[in-house]
């Protein structure tokens, strides 16, 4: 049953992704309604999958790479449904849904792990959850940045096409970008701190300078600089958009690195 549901979820997200991408180039608003429906149903079955896994294992499914990616996808879709429906910005789906779908795919492709590893300490569980939530923030910032760059190009080149009409205003995208980082950054900070505490508790040292830790710290410093740059030297608008795109590319590389290196459960930082 959970397998069927997770395939159903993936299928629905895939359908939603395709329809949302189609929606970008077509004037019809009907497409977006259908893709919203597909996404909503997908989210429903996704949630059901997560609950079932929780019931069967007795803890929230987040401790394996697979589970982490699935939770990441779930969080992204949740953000989309909240922001997109509230603001009537179905166009966000064309950017968030592919990301969510790809995360689910990568979760499926990830080697099967023993999924009943209970966290040794509560801190590890907290650490992973916080880090993923933080990453969701950066992912949304990335999507906002990507849309910003696209809309910016359309405005500069004066192409008033369907995409131009569908993409939201620049200042909305810039503020979504900023708010997403403001949401993600404290969570990442707490995630790193709890990770360090877990490391201290499990292996006896706060920092062991492995590549994941170094990447996490680089990511932290990068987003800190992005936030500070906005206030001090005006890293906003186009610059902020590019920076968050670059930043998230770094985040993805970290994930890929973890995936390639660790054919094992997520190790605490």
């Amino acid at each position: 049953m959970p397998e069927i549901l997770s395939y159903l979820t993936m299928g629905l997200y895939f359908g939603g992704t395709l329809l949302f991408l189609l929606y970008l180039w077509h004037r019809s608003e009907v497409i977006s309604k259908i893709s919203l429906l597909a996404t909503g149903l997908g989210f429903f079955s996704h949630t059901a999958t997560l609950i079932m896994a929780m019931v069967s294992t007795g803890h929230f499914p987040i401790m394996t790479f697979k589970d982490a990616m699935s939770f990441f996808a779930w969080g992204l879709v949740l953000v989309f449904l909240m922001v997109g429906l509230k603001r009537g910005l179905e166009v966000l789906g064309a950017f968030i849904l592919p990301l969510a779908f790809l995360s689910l795919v990568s979760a499926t492709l990830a080697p099967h792990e023993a999924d009943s590893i209970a966290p040794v300490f509560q801190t590890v569980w907290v650490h992973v959850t916080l880090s993923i939530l933080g990453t969701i923030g950066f992912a949304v910032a990335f999507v906002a940045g990507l849309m910003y760059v696209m809309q910016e190009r359309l405005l500069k080149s004066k192409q008033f096409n369907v995409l131009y009409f569908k993409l939201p205003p620049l200042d909305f995208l810039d503020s979504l970008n900023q708010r997403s980082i403001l949401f993600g950054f404290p969570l990442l900070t707490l995630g790193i701190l709890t990770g360090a505490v877990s490391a201290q508790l499990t292996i006896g040292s706060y920092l062991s300078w492995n590549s994941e830790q170094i990447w996490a710290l680089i990511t932290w410093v990068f987003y800190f600089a992005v936030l500070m740059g906005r206030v001090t030297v005006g890293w906003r608008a186009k610059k902020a958009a590019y920076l968050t795109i670059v930043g998230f590319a770094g985040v993805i590389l970290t994930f890929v690195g973890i995936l390639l290196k660790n054919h094992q459960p997520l190790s605490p930082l």
Partner: protein
Amino acid sequence: MNIIVLGLNHRTAPVELRELLAIQDSRMGEAFGRLMAYPGIKEAMYLGTCNRVEVYAVVDKGEWGFRQLEDFLVATHFSLSSEDLLPHLYHYSDDKAIAHLFRVSASLDSMVVGEPQILGQVKEAYELALTHRSSGVILNKVVKKAISVGKSVRTNTRIGEYAVSVSYAAVELAKKVFSNLKQRAVLLVGAGEMGKLAAQHLVNQGVKEVFITNRNHHRALALAERFHGHAVPYEQLGCHLPKVDIVICATGAPHYVISKEDIEDAVHHRMNRPMFLIDITVPRNIDPAVRDVDNAYVFDIDDLKAHVGQNQEERLKEAETAERMVREEVESIVAWVRGLEATPTIVALRKKAEDIKQGELEKIFNRLGELSPKERAAIEGLASAIVNKLLHGPVVTLKSEAQSQNGFAFIEAARRFFELQEREIHSGEAQILEDETSDVVSEETLPQKDGV
């Protein structure tokens, strides 16, 4: 008698010159006094907008009239000489002058064809002429007709829809940069018609603050009052740029008033907060190189037109329809004006009397049967005497009064009393024209009073 127009517009003269020729409301009385003091000028109307300054007049002799109007315009500003002015002036007479006024009124001569203000401005110019008693029989008829043609072009073609949508496109575009215009400050540079229209659309959206600057500070003050904004000295344009999010440039200057460096500085001061600039004039007032400045978005009139996305062909078709309507109306009014000459009126009057006389004589001869040549001559003599004596008074009066200030009124009266005109020219026109003067030219978007 000739109807003439002498003037300059956005195509023939730079804004600096047009501004020099602008007459302030307070000095309008004096100007009309000066204008009507020229001996050859019988009627006159002054039409001054940002994009044009024109004097329409009814004069005895076209050549003289043009010289007098030129003299009048040169004397408007102490720093002007006829050498400055002459290369920029255009002049038309009679049917061409009428056609020009009709085209102006129908907004076919505007910078943005179909813009709605010009009709109101023609109306105001006419009211001004009425106030200063410079309009007479001919201008009354011609200008009222021009207003009615302008109105009919607006209602029967889609020409106006287009201009409104062009200025509204500025708002639509601004909304792609700023989601909420209520937080935004706008700077209006210059006082071009489309600029004001775009600014009005933005004000309607509830922008936070409006700054207005103009080379002529009085105009800036007047516009500031209208938009509930702040007038800013023109020299301080640069230091106000960083404060505003939206700039609308409509000065009509033949050069750039905002350079790439200005905007680079402004965006830098704004810490990269985006700026949105609309350059609504031709030639452009904002250096197109501004588009290379990050976070500055500049759009000119062509971009706005593209945003409206209206079919070029369709637009041309609408303009063509409008031109045709204008041509038809010009023909009928020209026929009416021609009739107002004294000589043709007298000729027509004599011909009419002669026709009646001949008709009646024929009837009476048929009824009386055989008559001797003597009897025939006596009857014919009687008829001729009656006709000549009856016509003597009117003809003499027409000849003498034709040269006076009210001459056309006499001629017009004579033509009506003796039914010398083709029916169709009169048909109910008086009533239509009454309606027009009481009816405010419909302008959904802008208040009527627009002295600039």
